[in-house]
């Protein structure tokens, strides 16, 4: 099960990198936007890794706390970064 998790996270990391490069084509990403993206990405990955591992080790409470703490943080940081630093910086066509 942990092997599957690492495999999927590897795939998702590749997809996220592709998404980031795609985003750069349409938006001016300054250091704040980049920092927000890295932070949201980091928290999302810890959320997936932590919760998956916790459910595998039969500690569902830890899994739920992982989803709540790291997952929510990733969502909030991602949404804030999108609204404040990415969306307003759209490149003119």
């Amino acid at each position, binding site marked *: 099960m942990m092997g599957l998790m690492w495999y999927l996270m590897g795939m998702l990391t590749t997809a996220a990198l592709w998404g980031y490069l795609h985003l750069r084509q349409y938006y001016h990403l300054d250091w704040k936007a980049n920092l927000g993206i890295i932070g949201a990405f980091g928290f999302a990955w*810890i959320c997936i*890794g932590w919760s998956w591992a*916790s459910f595998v*080790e039969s*500690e*569902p*409470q*830890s899994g739920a*706390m*992982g989803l709540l703490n790291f997952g929510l943080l990733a969502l909030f940081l991602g949404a804030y970064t999108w609204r404040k630093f990415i969306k307003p910086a759209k490149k003119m066509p």
Partner: protein
Amino acid sequence: MMTSKKPAQPENQQRIEITDVTDDASVNQSRRNLFKIGAGIAATAVTGTSAAFVADRISGIEHDGFPVPLDLDVLKPFPQRNSIFTYALSPELALKYPARNHTFENNWGFQEHAQEFGHSMLDISYALKKSKEMGDKPGMSQLENALSWGGWAPMRVMAPFQHMMLPDNGVNSWYQGPIDLPPPIGRVEQVAPERWEFESGEAASAAIKSAARLYGAVRCGITRNDPMWNWDPIFDIQKGKDISWDEFPFKPKSVIVLLIDMDYAAMATAPSKISEATVGNGYSMMSFIGSSMKSFLHGLGYQAVVAGNDLANSVAYAVSAGLGEGARNGQLIAPRLGPRVRIAKIFTDLELPDEGYDKPRSFGIMEFCSKCKLCADACPADAISTDDEPGWNPTYEHGENPDYSWHHQLGVKKYYSDAKKCFKFWLESNTDCGACITACPWNKPDFWHHRMVEASNSFTGGPLHTFMKIMDNLYGYGNTFDEKAVQSFWKTGKDIEI
């Protein structure tokens, strides 16, 4: 409207000014570049230094001496007769030291109750009867009793009562001479006639640890024999008498310390017959791996004796061999395993050069213990100290009375537990408890997120340790008397299905 007009300047002067401006920009640019390079170097240096600091803390800070403060005026080798297990199993000691029973809980007799405990370990019918009397609680049914029975079985055959510190017994025998095998082989030597000489201390250390890994140990450290940590005199509970180290078959030079891990899912059920099963399995593995290591050393031409809880203070030797730190609950906490380990020792006359020996290391565990107290909170017998800092003497009730607190090796700055209360709970609960092991935040299975938290605990401190302790509870770890853990354990067999 007023206008200002610049005075006319000669052409060459203008050129000079332009040249000056160009030079300033160039200088500023190079300064900026210099600044960037400097900042880059500084950032690299800070990152490198921080990384080195973190790596050093995680892999443990090496010490030249014992890493815990010792009062050498007070510290003396510990006579084995003063240990709880030895006293509880010895009618001779009960007669010799009656005050030890009298001063504990209104003449509560250790021998009488320990006999029941011993009976449970040797007689499955008696163990089942005891469990029935206690209401067949979850984790205490015939199913779990049978599991425990099986876990302890190899130790009962290989080295009976080594867990109760019985020396010179079974594979823990001190005998190094020839043994008689059935014909046609006849008499054979145990110890090879020629000694293997290692190229260096590192080569010897690597070979010994490789053998230990192959036989099944999860950690191995090598340290010098230190009479301070040896039981002296040793006590034979079967014969009811002291034994001097002069009777030991050789002068030990080195002690090889092995750690054997216990199962996380089984220990999560503590206190129960399932946690007792993994403890028993740990002891059995100590005998199994220990006897293999003894034979390995015999094959190399060196004398060797295996010890479980007998012969010496296992925790002190494991600390000396750099395998972990002593903790609040009195046990060894090993990085990445926590207190969920058993310790076996091999005494040998193989002497290594200095570089072959491991050095004691500190991993930030005691610092964490001072902020945590989860083991003390979880202890059903209130036997573990809740003091903020380690001390030189027991601080529990009646701890100042030597007839009550007779079982300590004083002169070590540590947390002193009331082992009598701990053992009493074992006897009353018909288990060997283990709640403090389960509750410890360092007791975690091998998953990446635990390694990350543990690594951060090694180099942080103070309020962050308190925060981590609170989080450990909130994340649902360390529950004791957990009936769900019993159900979860009986599903772990699925993990080895193909």
